[in-house]
């Protein structure tokens, strides 16, 4: 359903672009030095992205400039399906609208628009799980919750769930700070620390639940509902049953 909708969104954008293309003089943003790959990416970009981000990636009133986004940002937004934007208040994770090869082309093109971070390399085996937990809880938990299920921000925005987490997507998000998320550059978190955090995020995908059913990981709210609905509910039924039992002694 979502992928159908996002495909429709792409089609709409294509139609919009084609109508605009007839009206506007296309600025020449194609230096002869562009490789064939980047040129293919540019064609995809013009069809799918330019109506909001501008024909040369400098942005329009309906979309920000991509000059400083870099490969990392483009990779994150396209791989998690957050771009192209469907009819939604804030970009949401959905199945990607483009194939892997198309995403690579688009990422390459966006990277050529200016100076931005490259796609981070993550060496999970270098990360330390416990250190990642400490870093996660102090840097990520305040918005994404300690369990990683996502939390509310103001005015309808929300920090999304951090899972399921592809290591490169998660690292790209940390390095580029999509949406309202802060940017954690190399001065804030070393590559090793990012790897540790990503390890912990992947651990949060299916953390051990030695205590039984995890109840959604949202803490005391679901626990309270379980206590009232299952606990009090069952006990009141027990009282109803026992209370109605005849003693046998009183009847003669």
């Amino acid at each position, binding site marked *: 359903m979502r992928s159908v909708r996002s495909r429709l969104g792409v089609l709409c954008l294509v139609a919009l672009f084609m109508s605009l293309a007839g009206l506007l003089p296309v600025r020449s943003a194609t230096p002869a030095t562009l490789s064939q790959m980047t040129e293919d990416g540019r064609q995809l970009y013009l069809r799918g992205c330019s109506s909001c981000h501008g024909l040369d990636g400098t942005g329009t009133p309906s979309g920000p400039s991509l000059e400083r986004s870099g490969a990392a940002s483009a990779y994150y937004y396209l791989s998690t399906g957050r771009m192209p934007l469907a009819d939604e208040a804030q970009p949401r994770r959905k199945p990607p609208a483009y194939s892997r090869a198309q995403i690579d082309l688009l990422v390459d093109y966006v990277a050529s628009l200016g100076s931005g971070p490259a796609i981070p390399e993550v060496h999970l085996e270098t990360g330390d799980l416990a250190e990642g937990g400490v870093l996660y809880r102090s840097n990520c938990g305040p918005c994404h919750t300690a369990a990683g299920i996502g939390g509310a921000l103001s005015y309808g925005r929300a920090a999304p769930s951090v899972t399921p987490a592809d290591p490169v997507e998660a690292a790209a998000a940390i390095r580029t700070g999509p949406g309202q998320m802060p940017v954690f550059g190399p001065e804030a978190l070393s590559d090793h620390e990012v790897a540790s955090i990503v390890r912990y995020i992947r651990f949060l995908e299916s953390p051990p639940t030695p205590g039984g059913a995890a109840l959604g990981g949202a803490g005391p709210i679901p626990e*309270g509902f379980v206590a009232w609905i299952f606990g009090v509910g069952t006990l009141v039924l027990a009282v109803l049953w026992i209370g109605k039992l005849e003693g046998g002694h009183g009847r003669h």
Partner: protein
Amino acid sequence: MNQPRPATRSRRLARWVDDRLGTAYLATKALRKVFPDHWSFMLGELSLYSFVILVVTGVYLTFFFDPSQAESTYRGSYEAMRGVEMTAAYRSALELSFDVRAGLVMRQIHHWAALLFVATMAVHMARVFFTGAFRRPREINWMVGVTLLILAVFNGFAGYSLLDDQLSGTGLRIGYSIALSVPLVGTWLVSLLFGGEFPGPDIIERLYVIHILLVPAVIAALIGVHMAILLRQKHTQFAGPGRAEGNVVGERVWPTYAAKGLGLFFLTTAVLAALGGLAQINPIWIYGPFDPAEVSAASQPDWYMGWLDGAMRLIPPWEVRAFGYEVPNPFFPGAVLPGVTFALLYLWPFLEARFTGDRSEHHLLDRPRDRPVRTAMGVATIAFYGVLFLAGGGDVLSTTFGVSVNAVFQAFRVLLFVLPAASAWVAYRLCRDLAQRDPAPADDGSVAMTALAGVAEDGRDQDDRAGHDGPEAQGQAVGKHH
């Protein structure tokens, strides 16, 4: 039957104790008490049994928990926390959860029992309220009950604050701020309790003594008082055939209610064991050790503190200056609201007597429909605190249902006043309609004159209400309706 039975060993022991303490008389008296039949009269027992489970599991936990804020490093079997610096309290709570045999299931049963201890108290209290069982002569026992509720809520908070995980530390931080917001005495209060600036070096050790010794001892003593007063005054009953202000119709404690109570205790234990074994509660290893500089999104207290959290979230940012002192905002939702709430609960029997002008003794219960104003006020109260409770989880509701958190809180601010009013109106109309369709059964006063004790007309056991109070009281109880 009249032949002397052989003196068995247990019989000889019972006689030996009786010769010295005279226990047989008291035991017989208590076991022969008649307890009226209605399922709702057993709700309070659920709290009693939860308390028993709390004590048993709590004692087990004290063998392993180390209430110390000393620096320490985790080296246990939970990989994601190995080598992390933390307090000894949090470390021992982790070890209790992962490395102590039956530690986690005991911890979870203890926590679920705490949630149900307060919840079943609330249900029991609602039953007492809606049936008017708090009226003269039971005002004192009502106040004992309110005190038990406050102590249970406080001890629950003290209990989950001991573990020194991020969630409990966040709760303590709020508690600290509320105590600090109290005019004049706030600063002294927190430095006494916490031993200095937050988080303070002493708070966990102090809360530990409060949680495992002081408050449980007072709760146990007050439960004793609560039940002694119940025995002394005898239980209320609903009106019906053979039931009057002057008698108690039901079945004797021995054997009927002893068996029922034991069965209910087993069932309570079973429900708590099922919850503790199957449903994870308070996964402190996810929350991490407490750091005053951090706070996780979606931090909520346990349900019985949720209404206070909700009030903190809903109150507009008011601050008042009075006599040259700043009265900080948390004072209103954190101190005034619970103060007013519990003061009104304490005073309710007297307030109601004042408004209705009814100061006479009542042993027959009201049906909620026959007291529409009281019922409507009770429903409005539940709605008010229910909205506050939901507001305490406003951010979780916002993300769960994809609604703006600002819209959620604006809606709750309106609902906080609209919902109690609307539900009170609905409850009032329902009561009136139900009562019209089904008028209250009259007090069957004639029975009290004839059958004072022994067996009622329908063959059920019956006690005379005032028998133990001497002839004067007896005459009063029997003659009241004539």
